[in-house]
């Protein structure tokens, strides 16, 4: 039903936790299904150097949160402005059509964390 990548991230979620003294935090909830992703990031010289997540919800949400941290560490803030849900889905192999909102939630968490770092 789910791709190997999704089950693998569920079995071994990456970068779980909270960044200490983060540059920005994005904490977003899907109000329909109540899935939630909390992303904290550290930015040094316009580059994300550390990213950690907390998440709750269905398997694709947890996998999307986990893979998000892998996708953003080491990339510039400017570059990350272009990260969309397609990139999340590609990294997870595939996502059932009914679960696209899980990838969207991960993107929302990133946007919120970046916005928070600017404020």
């Amino acid at each position, binding site marked *: 039903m*789910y791709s190997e990548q999704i*089950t693998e991230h*569920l*079995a071994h*979620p990456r970068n*779980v936790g*909270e960044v200490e003294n983060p540059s920005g935090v994005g*904490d977003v909830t*899907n109000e*329909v*299904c*109540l*899935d*939630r992703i*909390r992303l904290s990031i550290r930015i040094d010289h316009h580059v994300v150097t550390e990213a950690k*997540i*907390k*998440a*709750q*919800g*269905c*398997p694709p949400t*947890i996998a999307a949160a986990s893979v998000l941290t892998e996708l953003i560490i080491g990339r510039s803030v400017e570059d990350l402005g272009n990260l969309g849900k397609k990139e999340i889905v590609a990294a997870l192999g595939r996502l059932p059509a*009914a679960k696209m*909102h899980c990838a969207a939630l991960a993107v929302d968490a990133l946007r919120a964390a970046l916005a928070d770092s600017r404020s």
Partner: protein
Amino acid sequence: MRVYLDNSATTAVAPEVIDAMLPFFADEPGNAGSVHSFGQRAKAAVETSRRQVAALIGAAPAEIVFTSGGTEADNIAVRGTAEAHREHGRHLITTAIEHPAVLATCEALERDGYRVTYLPVSGAALVSVDDVRRAIEHDTTLISVMHANNETGTIQPIEEIAQVVADARAAGHTHLHFHTDAVQSVGKVPVDVARLGVDLLSIAAHKIHGPKGVGALYVRKGTRLAKLTYGGHQERDRRAGTENVAGIVGLGRAAELARLELDERMARMRRLRDHLETQVKSRISGVRLNGDLARRVPSVSNMSFEGLDGESLLIALDLRGVAVSTGSACASGAHEPSHVLRALGLSREEIRGSLRLSVGAYTTREEIDYAVDVLVETVARSREMQPSDAL
């Protein structure tokens, strides 16, 4: 270690059942309807199986109709009764927690002009006998209430409802019939058609360590049913189609084992299920057991883990070899929670965090201990992942 705790979904075929079935694939190719000796041996095997199934539920062999499984048995019982008695009435009564084989058949009958009353259940998953009595109308022809529920294992008051049916018949409702879907109770608790007081009762082989694709419908002598399939005159003209001889033989042997080993299996499954629940309750916080804990089959435990998602737990457990099921699957962002748990009045979060663990006749204590260890670790890890201010 691989631990299969989804025996309410289906079970492993018992070695004795496989042995009984094997000759009927190649060595004994006969069609039970053929006149030659090959056909007669197949026929004899089918009739032996009929006696074995009848013995398990206290019926006469002639009252057993073999089907392709529980779903077909339910379809024949519900639609077959509704259509056979339509000149006397077009009203049926069932419950909100039936298996889809009954619910979807009732919905199809509604589209055909029948009226159906869907009775609610209590927070403990029990149907009220008074609700059944009050729902009977002048033109009600069928009441269908499952014996044990597939998600919680709750046993419904079938004998009491049968008394209501008997009273109604005595008062002139001569065309009222009573069906129970016993797919989840046969082989788990004593099932006797005379004691239960039903006219029709559905059974599936694969829930009692028999093969998939075969089941039976008990039809009390003298009960009139309309045909759903047209063809040959098999099964006393109640179910057309060449008999699934190997499958029927498997069902018969599985029924015999279930009858002979019933007391031992019940005690074993109850011990294991209770051990599982005791361990889970003592080692994991925020667990709620769902359904009526006193009135249930000994094989099933339905539990909710506060703040967690059942499907995420299911997959994490599966990755470590433990198979369970969940009553909740999230689709397109909106949960489509189990109609059973919803009918029990559970909150959205409780339904979401629910798992069903079901033991079988061959589950071992070591398997339960391993499953509990994995469950404890999986729940702990899932909770560590949650934002600290989560529920």
